[in-house]
């Protein structure tokens, strides 16, 4: 849960960029087992670019040996696909029968005036795209508005400003102070058992966890938030995304011995002894948010 939250927090919907034939070819090859997979291919391209670029469709037609008309027909048939770049946030208002009688047209009007665009358009700053759909299958909850995959039921005209504001900051931002899923832990080195807590350096208003890290012949310190579920860190090294780093104890200088690999990216998981019993494991790959807590 937290995982996904943080992921969708950091992810950016890409807009207007050059189509890389290599990426498209890879996607096509992955799915091109039978004719029916064309939708899967288009879906994946859309996730990659946020929309279906013309160039990409031409490559798909070339690679799948299907005519461009067919692919274009599919791309324009399904509401899911867009041939125009979409904004960072997708606002989808239901205009189905049930929502309609419950006042959805007024909701759409309000959305249009607040965003300054018509349905089907994208704001100039590429922040919002407004679309309408005909029934989301949640008629009893109408009027329904979906923003970035989050469903909002019985939406009122007066609540729209607030919704859009929340969308801007991201629905998944975790309020560290209030969220009960987040709690501080105190950890120590599993080898020498000395505490790794650093009172002198606070992250998230709590003492941080200090470890030494090394990668590529560089060493330095890394401080992690001690809040279980927070990913805030601070380090003196510039660790590129996706590098696997080695974690050492700052006291005994022994490498924190990994006993398992990350289920998501296969990098070693680094164990930290939790005071009060248990082992917290964090993935040693920069950018991978996998972590777990084994309570003994």
């Amino acid at each position, binding site marked *: 849960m937290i995982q996904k939250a943080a992921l969708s927090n950091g992810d950016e919907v890409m807009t207007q960029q050059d189509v890389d034939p290599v990426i498209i070819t890879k996607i096509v090859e992955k799915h091109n087992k039978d004719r029916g997979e064309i939708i899967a291919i288009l879906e994946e391209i859309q996730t990659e670019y946020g929309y279906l670029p013309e160039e990409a469709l031409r490559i798909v037609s070339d690679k799948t040996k299907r005519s*461009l*008309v067919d692919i274009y*027909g599919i791309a*324009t*048939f399904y509401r899911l696909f867009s041939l125009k770049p979409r904004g960072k946030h997708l606002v989808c208002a239901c205009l189905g029968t049930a929502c309609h009688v419950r006042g959805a047209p007024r909701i759409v009007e309000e959305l249009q005036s607040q965003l300054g665009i018509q349905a089907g358009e994208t704001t100039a700053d590429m922040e919002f795209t407004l679309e309408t759909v005909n029934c989301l299958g949640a008629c009893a909850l109408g009027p329904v508005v979906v923003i970035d995959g989050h469903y909002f039921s019985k939406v009122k005209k007066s609540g729209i400003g607030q919704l859009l504001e929340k969308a801007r900051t991201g629905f998944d931002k975790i309020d560290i102070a209030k969220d009960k899923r987040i709690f501080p832990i105190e950890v120590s080195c599993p080898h020498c058992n000395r505490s790794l807590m650093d009172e002198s350096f606070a992250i998230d208003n709590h003492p941080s966890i200090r470890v030494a890290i090394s990668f590529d012949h560089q060493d330095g310190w890394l401080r992690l938030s001690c809040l279980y579920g927070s990913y805030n860190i601070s380090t003196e090294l510039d660790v590129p995304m996706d590098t696997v780093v080695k974690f050492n104890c700052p006291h005994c200088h022994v490498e924190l011995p990994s006993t398992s690999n990350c289920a998501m990216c296969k990098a070693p998981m680094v164990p930290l002894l939790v005071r009060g019993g248990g082992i917290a494991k964090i993935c040693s790959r920069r950018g991978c948010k996998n972590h777990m807590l084994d309570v003994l």
Partner: protein
Amino acid sequence: MITLKINGLDVSVEQGTTVLEAANFLGFPIPTLCHMEGLSPYGACRLCVVEIGEGPKAKLVSSCTYPAQEGLKVRTASNRVIRARRMILELLLASCPQSKTIQDLASAHGIRQQRFRQEYEDCILCGLCVRMCDEQMMAKAIGFRGRGENRSIGTPFDVKSDVCRTCGGCMYICPACQLRCTYNEPEKAICGGCANLTPPCLEKEHFDDMMCYMDPCVACEIETKTDK
């Protein structure tokens, strides 16, 4: 062989024959619009409705797509069929009143008036041109796009298709636009080819392998007019 009854007459046809073909074999006229020999049946216009079955189970089906079945009882001109057909024609007439083909069909069915708002569409989405382009011309340059109200026929991205050979087959077969060629209104043209190319008849050697269906050819007419 399959034996079925059409308007009370027994007829034996081969497996895979459609009701329309069987009726034509017996000589019962069924009007069609989106059907053409040599193109796969599509069932878009519903003009070829017939009634099958009996009593309360009787229902209307489109004969061009309905396969003949053993013991099937078909009526090609019952009251119900005639009523439905006239309604369909009225609706077609409302959406495309300028089409000569539809006007002729309507008058043949005694329709002098229609009661709906006239739309003056230039396409009834019968799909004839799409099938022509695909099945006879092997080009697949045009196709259906969008859906519902926004469904339309045209080339991908509304630009001239690389696979269109400007054969004119789509215009030849179209029952709705009696213009044949939209040379002077390129934005309305289905393939737009004629607007971007010199008409084939003027530079024959470039298009040796081309099958030209434009008859009368607007390009030729324009050419001869300006000559004089």
